[in-house]
């Protein structure tokens, strides 16, 4: 985890950071890029591959950074991405 903090919280070692796994439903994606632009942890980037409709779905290039905040899921207009808690 490489959070940008101006000072390390005193209890940083005790706090468990929530982690997530992001799922991409490729055939629904229309490549708008909203999830990529607004993910607070820069987990996603545009994939080079195409889906059946000719769009580029995102890929999770830094899955380990995902904090399961669900923002990609709620900003997506196409029901094409969602996050779940990672099993530790």
């Amino acid at each position: 985890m490489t959070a940008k903090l101006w000072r390390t919280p005193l209890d940083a070692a005790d706090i468990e950071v929530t982690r997530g796994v992001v799922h991409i439903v490729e055939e629904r994606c229309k490549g708008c890029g909203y999830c990529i632009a607004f993910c607070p942890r820069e987990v996603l980037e545009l994939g080079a591959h195409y889906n059946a409709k000719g769009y580029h779905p995102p890929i999770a290039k830094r899955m380990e950074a995902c904090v399961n905040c669900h923002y990609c899921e709620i900003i997506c207009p196409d029901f094409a991405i969602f996050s779940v808690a990672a099993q530790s």
Partner: protein
Amino acid sequence: MKAQPADHPLNGLLRTERIPHIWCPGCGIGTAFSACLTALLNSGMDLTKTAMVSGIGCSGRAAGYVKLDSYHTTHGRAIPFATGMKLAKPELNLVVFSGDGDLFAIGGNHFIHGARRNVDLTVVCVNNFNYGMTGGQAAATTPTYAKTTTTPLGNPDTPFNLPLLAYAAGATFVARWTILHNRDLTRCLEEALAHRGFSFVEVLAPCPTGYGRRNREKPLDALHLYQEHAVIRNGASPIEVELDPKRAITLGTFVQIQRATCIDMYDKVCRPAVAL
């Protein structure tokens, strides 16, 4: 740590066989619709007694994607159809989900009278500043100076301030959010659903194909405009929330009041024995 193959959490409320939906890449309607479905799930309402009613236009397609009882009505007439359903079956929860063209141009008169009577409906208006489906013509909500197919030199007219219109007509819950302010929007929709009376939520959403293309606004630019210019002022007077998309986008819940609903008054005046 590989998670089980999971389903999208809203699949249960979607007619998944019709997804991918028809909306263009980056169209904000899908996000507004998704927030509405999440609010319905969170509301705790009996969804077997909940119906979604839409008019015509891109936003109107929502009624065809929700896996609830739904009604895709004629142009501008979602509110009268929903009013009829409410009067016939007062136990129904009715959500009208439609666009600005449908609700405020051809359906403008229905809107004001639904609000005046305080019919117990939740009206969600996706406002994308133009008629998307028919090719990007100017609407009653198009900002002054904005370009559309029917205003190539810029729109000379003044758009409606929708929250003020709703309040003046008698709506008892009035709010505005954007698709970017998704969590606030969802919470607000939950409150609107719980509100007894006519509730109105305006949701600003980009239409990249109709409006964006002619105003040099890519889908992401629209969201960045929301981010830059949003000012959250819950309780602001609707008179002060005029939209100026490039300068001030006032968001929040502006009105939340109680008064007798259409059915309350009908029972009191026309069926006094029943009301007792």
